[in-house]
């Protein structure tokens, strides 16, 4: 790795600078994406009139091999020593064309792009106006590229270890894949067990695999894999550094039981002075009770009990015979436990922080929280689970068994009042719940749907299976759930009122139990997590991928990858597939061993620096130091992230930014204004 001396000495210009700039302008048609709106021939004519332009050409697809070859040939023929490509956004193809420039034998930094697709042809109604705007952008690029310089390409080593945040199925799969490739993986989960939402399900669609049967072996594999350090009941509280070189601070919350000693025999739970479980059991969506000392479910991983200090008599009063401690043969209790912190250095991070479900009480008309027999789908998942509060029996809050059940689809989804997006999984899990409810209780099941969305492998077949089984499907959004009876049949029951759009009138369907198929939403702290890791969220709050199609697991922050529903609603197969993809991206990056550092770093021209130290205080990354002896500032280019905040503030113009020097930007400003 090159460590700059930081004194910003002005180096003698490289050979390419010694000769006068000869700019080649290459205008891309992008099929009809650009040429359909912009007069490409006129752009070429215009470009050839600009100062320093030696060659101007157009081609149907500049990014294609023959297109890139055009550039390379002109460089090899000595016709050009600067390259401007007017095509799509630099965020799309800058790397491609820098590569082509380098392949031709020039420095890749002697290149500039003009975005005449995203910023012109796609957003301008009038062809004449579009052509004019494209001309202006090309002139800006031509003026600026004449001042470009060769830059040293610096690399930083990539640390081999990896952090995975979130221990649901996506995080588990990513962690296992990378651990099996020999990487050390730190898996951080904030709950006391890994497993996530999938661990709460009884069956999975469309195959009706037993969820625990396919998940728990993977959970055990995480625990037994020597390459995985599993930290549950922990959260990430600090992230510093950059791609290949992150320092992550992890907080371990006290569970008051030592993880290294507890064997998960659960004798302490039986021995607890509270003979009856009285505390709301979050794992069972509040449908069951637990004790102040508990384990979420039998296969919890790690199988370590947790003490809830808000409910434990010892913590509340300090007076308890502590029968739990006596029952523990391993002396695992530690009531003095405090928060602990660990700091790890990793090269890459996979975020698999998952989702939360829509809060059904927000839709007043559906009666959740008002009528005891209105349930959300996660609650019904627990009712159906053999390890759940009712051992898999459909027993309602009033103790009754339903004869008729209505499932309302799209609760909180596809609704501009709540979330306009489709949550993707609700149709299928509703079918699964319908099947299981029928199977377990023999109840008649009515599905109220807007559209049946079954686009996965075996999904449509599963829908057909349900149709053949005799599950009822009513197409129409439900208006309300009410207990106001209008007939004898409706008395004492819940009535679902909905328009049946296939027969064209409003129906009232009396049922005993209502299931609200709630949609998927970003975690409530997604915003904080996003800030912590310096990535972005879309309008709905899910983390944004770098490119929706071509970089679906990368983020705009290099070295941070996404897996699972934190990026958007996803079912289990898609989450696992994405987790595998994220793991592969990480492995590719870690095994490469080095990452290219930001080229656009700042530097200080020591001769011009007055030593005012304005920049030192401004740098968000502490990359600027002040040399008291020479009375000048110096930038550590390895730490510098290339924002240019210091450059914009430097009163003497001594601080500059590679690829964004004052002169380059001023020339671009002049270019976009003075030629059209």
């Amino acid at each position, binding site marked *: 790795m090159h460590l700059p001396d930081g004194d910003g000495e002005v180096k003698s210009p490289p050979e390419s600078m010694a000769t006068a700039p000869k700019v080649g302008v290459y205008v891309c048609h992008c099929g009809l994406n650009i040429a359909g709106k912009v007069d490409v021939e006129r752009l070429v004519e215009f470009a050839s009139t600009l100062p320093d332009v030696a060659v101007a050409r157009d081609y149907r697809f500049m990014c294609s091999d023959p297109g890139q070859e055009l550039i390379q040939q002109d460089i090899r023929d000595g016709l050009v020593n600067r390259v401007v490509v007017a095509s799509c*956004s*630099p*965020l*799309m193809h800058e790397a491609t064309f820098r590569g082509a420039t380098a392949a031709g034998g020039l420095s890749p930094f002697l290149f500039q792009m003009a*975005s005449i*697709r*995203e*910023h*012109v042809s*796609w*957003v*301008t*109604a*009038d062809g004449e*106006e*579009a052509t*004019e*705007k494209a001309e*202006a*952008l090309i002139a*800006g690029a031509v003026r600026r590229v004449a001042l470009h310089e060769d830059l040293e390409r610096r690399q930083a080593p990539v640390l081999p270890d990896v952090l995975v945040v979130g221990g649901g199925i996506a995080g588990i799969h990513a962690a296992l894949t990378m651990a099996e490739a020999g990487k050390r993986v730190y898996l951080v989960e904030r709950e006391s067990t890994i497993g996530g939402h999938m661990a709460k399900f009884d069956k999975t669609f469309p195959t009706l695999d037993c969820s625990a049967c396919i998940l728990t072996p993977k959970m055990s594999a995480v625990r037994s894999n020597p390459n995985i350090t599993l930290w549950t009941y922990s959260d990430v509280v600090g992230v510093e550094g950059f791609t290949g070189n992150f320092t992550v601070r992890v907080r371990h919350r006290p569970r008051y039981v030592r993880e290294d000693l507890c064997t998960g025999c659960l004798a302490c739970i039986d021995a607890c002075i509270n003979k009856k479980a009285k505390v709301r059991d979050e794992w069972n969506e509040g449908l069951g009770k637990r004790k102040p000392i508990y384990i979420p479910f039998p296969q919890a991983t790690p199988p370590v009990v947790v003490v809830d200090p808000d409910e434990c008599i010892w913590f509340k009063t300090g007076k308890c015979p502590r029968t739990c401690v006596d029952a523990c043969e391993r002396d695992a209790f530690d009531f003095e436990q405090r928060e602990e912190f660990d700091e790890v250095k990793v090269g890459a991070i996979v975020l698999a922080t998952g989702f939360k479900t829509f809060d059904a009480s927000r839709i007043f008309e559906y009666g959740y929280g008002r009528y005891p027999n209105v349930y959300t789908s996660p609650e019904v998942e627990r009712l159906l689970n053999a390890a759940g509060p009712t051992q898999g029996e459909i027993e309602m809050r009033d103790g009754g068994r339903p004869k008729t059940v209505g499932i309302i689809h799209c609760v909180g989804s596809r609704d501009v009042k709540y979330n306009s997006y489709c949550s993707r999984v609700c149709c299928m899990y509703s079918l699964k719940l319908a099947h299981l409810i029928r199977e377990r209780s023999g109840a008649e099941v009515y599905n109220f749907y807007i559209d049946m969305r079954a686009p996965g492998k075996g999904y449509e077949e599963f829908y057909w299976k349900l149709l053949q089984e005799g599950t009822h499907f009513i197409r129409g959004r439900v208006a309300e759930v009410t207990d106001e009876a209008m007939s004898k049949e409706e008395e004492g029951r819940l009535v679902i009122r909905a328009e049946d759009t296939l027969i064209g009138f409003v129906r009232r369907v009396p049922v005993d139990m209502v299931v609200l198929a709630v949609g998927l939403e970003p975690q409530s702290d997604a915003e904080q997590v996003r*800030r912590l890791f*310096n990535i*972005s*969220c*879309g*309008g709905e709050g899910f983390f*944004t991928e770098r490119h929706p199609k071509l970089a679906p697991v990368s983020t*705009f*922050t290099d070295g941070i990858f996404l897996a699972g529903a934190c990026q958007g609603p996803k079912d289990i197969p898609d989450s696992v597939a994405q987790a595998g993809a994220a793991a592969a991206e990480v492995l590719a990056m870690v095994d490469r061993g080095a990452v290219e550092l930001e080229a*656009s770093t700042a530097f200080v021209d020591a001769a011009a620096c007055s030593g005012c130290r304005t920049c030192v205080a*401004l740098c*968000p*990354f502490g990359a600027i130091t002040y040399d008291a002896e020479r009375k000048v500032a110096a930038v550590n280019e390895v730490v510098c*992230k*290339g*924002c*240019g*905040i210091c*450059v*914009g*503030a430097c009163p003497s113009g001594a601080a500059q*930014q590679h690829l*964004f020097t*004052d002169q380059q*930007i*001023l020339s*671009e*400003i*002049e270019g*976009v*204004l*003075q030629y059209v």
Partner: protein
Amino acid sequence: MSEAVDETFEPRIVAFFCNWCTYTAADLAGICRMTYAPNVRVVRLMCSGRVDPQFVLAAFRDGADGVLIGGCHPGDCHYQQGNFHALRRVALLRPMLRDMGIEEGRLRIEWISAAEGDKVQRVCNEMTEQVRMLGPLRLAPAPGSQNDAVLVEVTEGLVEQEVP
């Protein structure tokens, strides 16, 4: 403005967009084919914190009728706080522009996240209309021009009168 609004006047606006939020949002607007006024010419910077006040002045000098700065929302800056620095610089620049006779509406700063392609469309349209209403920017002539010579003559005359 005493003159009637020139219907044919097409303002030229230079926009400084940060790479991570606003430039990406402008790309998104393109991908979503959101048509907007063609008057805004974007200069990409890594961060709105890179916007040196002299860039704004240079844009006006070089013929821009308006300048738009786009950065990440507060708290979202890819570099933590560059957008705050941009905001402070704009605040300091405003009185200077006013003194130069450049109307306040010709400089605008906006926070546009990578997901807000529609905001790029709206802001570019609004800014174009606003600057169109203000009319072309007519700065005092540059030094060395004909008017400047007249000015020198007049001031020299004044000097002679005051210091006999």
